[in-house]
């Protein structure tokens, strides 16, 4: 088992004169839930995108499972997956066709069996033959999560996993992700504006502010350091 899941060294991203992520160095152990927090424009999404190779860093290095992302990209990507409400699947084809496509890209063995098992777990079995574009946002989120779990990722990146979902669907998603993490000992990195969600799931918090790390450590340390009892308090205090 690798020692670290994610290690970044002086990671920066600059667009022209604008620095979006600045000198971020983190070292996350293998396995567990990690939350990335920050206000709008703090650089969370850019940071996540760099970890997946979607955005090339301007400076710095990224190591996933102790291997350089620059030199072992495709080997690493086999074990990563991602879900975001801002990223869709092709709308004109069925859920099943979408899932089979991604299962092939990840070289999933026994594709149909895997899809059926996940779709049963996520209550989307009845939707498999539906056209993806006709689904509600709650249904789409569950289908996207199914796509994100197809390759049993060792590193799962979730961008606002429960955005625009009702309370019960959100709770279901959280429980399911927790169960998945426990079973696979995966590393799950979450960004969310739902602070309660991060508080419930994550023991380790990375706080970004204007692209820089403001805090990186245990959740309890953050509470202690900021003399607050919740993440919401910390953000509200900051605003004052």
């Amino acid at each position, binding site marked *: 088992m690798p020692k670290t899941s994610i290690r970044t060294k002086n990671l920066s991203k600059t667009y022209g004169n604008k620095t979006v992520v600045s000198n971020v160095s983190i070292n996350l152990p293998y396995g567990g839930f990690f939350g990335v927090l920050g206000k709008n424009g703090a650089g969370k999404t850019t940071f996540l995108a760099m970890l997946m190779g979607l955005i090339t860093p301007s400076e710095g290095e990224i190591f996933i499972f102790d291997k350089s992302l620059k030199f072992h990209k495709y080997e690493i990507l086999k074990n990563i997956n*991602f879900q975001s409400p801002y990223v869709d699947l092709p709308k004109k084809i069925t859920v099943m066709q979408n899932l089979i496509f991604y299962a092939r*890209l990840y070289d999933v063995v026994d594709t149909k069996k895997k899809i059926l098992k996940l779709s049963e777990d996520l209550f989307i079995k009845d939707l498999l033959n539906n056209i993806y574009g006709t689904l509600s946002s709650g249904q789409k989120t569950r289908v996207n999560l199914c796509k994100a779990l197809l390759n049993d990722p060792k590193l799962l990146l979730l961008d606002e996993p429960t955005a625009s979902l009702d309370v019960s669907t959100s709770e279901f998603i959280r429980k399911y992700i927790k169960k998945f993490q426990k079973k696979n000992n995966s590393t799950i990195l979450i960004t969310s504006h739902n602070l309660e969600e991060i508080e419930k799931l994550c023991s380790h918090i990375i706080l970004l502010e204007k692209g820089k790390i403001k805090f990186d450590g245990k959740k309890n340390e953050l509470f202690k350091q900021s003399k607050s009892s919740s993440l919401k308090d910390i953000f509200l205090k900051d605003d004052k």
Partner: protein
Amino acid sequence: MINRIIALLIRYKNISFGSFPRLLSIFYWPTVQILFWGYFTNFFMSNESFGIWSALNIILSAVVLWDVLFRGQLGLTMSFFEELWSRNLPNLFITPLKDIEMVYGLILISLIRTLIGITPAIFFANYFFDFHLFELGLYLIFLFLNLIIFGWSIGFIVSGLVLRYGQAFEELAWAIIFIILPFSCVYYPLDSLPTLVQGIALFLPTVHIFETMRLILIENKIILNNVFIIIFLNLFYLILSILFFLKMISIARKRGLLFNQGE
């Protein structure tokens, strides 16, 4: 009421004139139509010796083969645009899919789409107009392959531009083929064009392809030199366009564009 109409007018003006490709398409079309039909009429007026059926056969062969180029290019760009329109690019590029594998996938789907699209057209033309495209014999396969390859080259350039510069360039996917149409000598020979334009047109493989087609249909002969020029130009443009497309993906990664594309 007037205010609302003016508001609409300003809005449509901004959309129509807001990008170079859209602006180009507005003034380009009338010019293209005039040039194209002018050269076309000149050629057939000066070749009255053609019987109506041989003239029709030449025109229909050119229509079908030109459509191969159009379908080839469209099959590639539309397949790529589907990924953009459905905001699916991040999902795609975080998989172990290599950029070059995407290139192969797009080429294959374009080939399949073109074959499916063009086959019924050939049979209908054969049935209704006694049209014999197969008179081109084995050369038909050569011409077909080279036209679709040039379609791919154009498709990769357009897809790369859209990825890099955004949706304003989508218009090019439909327009670019017709931009090169008058210079491709599809329905008239190269010497119908002004001398200066001929020099530029010679760099297009389509010119040599359609000259070859006419030579086979009219004189039943082929110039080997033309065949080599077609192969050389096509390979050159295909390699160049694929490198351009791959470079645009790399720039999109640097500029964070893979995350911000969509309808």
